């Protein structure tokens, strides 16, 4: 994408470049999780930065730059999503209703009467690697994955996610609940497979 032809003061360019470079690691990290590969993530960030530059006049408070450009990144990804992956979305939306959102990793791990300074759930989190979490997120069904990345990785609000995905806030909450439950179930299964937990019998109590 080309940047705008409209002339802008060189101090704007310098400020914008500095502001972009400061948030580039988090833009790229989020884009990696959204696109699941580096090449597409680079394209996504480059397009979002170009859009941000084009729309810079709409940013009235430059102190709000970080959240603003994150929203642009989310919106840019959503535009890609709509344009290129329609059929998989329809198929994965069909799976939304069949997901159990009550699964809780804490319920599987927690043992109420152990000493407080060392609990199975803390030990489990300590043993998880970054790649374990990345794999669990990458394997989520698309609508859940995008909601979880936007909320938990990117830190957008429900309203911002609702606007980016053009879905009601109730649907945002529902996708987050189901996505997080699915993620925790995958981490629990990984914990069993990798020997991170002692039991092979999932507990099913509820709080």
């Amino acid at each position: 994408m080309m940047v705008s032809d409209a002339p802008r003061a060189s101090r704007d360019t310098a400020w914008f470049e500095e502001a972009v470079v400061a948030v580039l690691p988090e833009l790229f990290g989020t884009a990696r999780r959204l696109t699941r590969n580096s090449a597409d993530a680079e394209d996504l960030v480059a397009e979002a930065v170009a859009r941000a530059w084009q729309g810079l006049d709409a940013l009235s408070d430059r102190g709000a730059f970080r959240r603003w450009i994150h929203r642009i990144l989310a919106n840019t990804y959503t535009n890609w999503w709509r344009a290129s992956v329609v059929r998989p979305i329809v198929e994965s939306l069909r799976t939304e209703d069949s997901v159990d959102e009550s699964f809780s990793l804490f319920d599987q791990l927690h043992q109420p009467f152990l000493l407080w300074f060392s609990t199975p759930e803390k030990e489990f989190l300590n043993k998880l690697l970054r790649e374990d979490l990345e794999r669990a997120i990458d394997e989520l069904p698309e609508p859940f994955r995008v909601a979880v990345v936007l909320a938990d990785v990117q830190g957008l609000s429900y309203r911002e996610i609702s606007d980016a995905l053009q879905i009601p806030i109730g649907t945002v909450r529902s996708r987050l609940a189901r996505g997080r439950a699915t993620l925790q179930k995958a981490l629990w299964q990984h914990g069993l497979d990798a020997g991170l937990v002692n039991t092979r019998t999932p507990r099913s109590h509820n709080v």
Partner: protein
Amino acid sequence: MCDRTILTCADALRLLAQYLDRELGDGDRADFEQHLATCRSCYSRAEFERRLKDELTRLGESHVPSTLHNRIRALLSDVP
């Protein structure tokens, strides 16, 4: 006058995600935190979910390849 609502564990569990996502209003957040201060089980659950969320947030930081840095510089150097 205090108009705080006493939450049950089921109430707290229902509000947990919104609390961690900073989506609760002041009143609900105060009620929730009051419950956490008196319930070891819900406190432990909230701490676990908060730590897991923090771990996911950390995935948002990634080393930026030099190719992307170069693209951004090239993009802005074309600006009139």
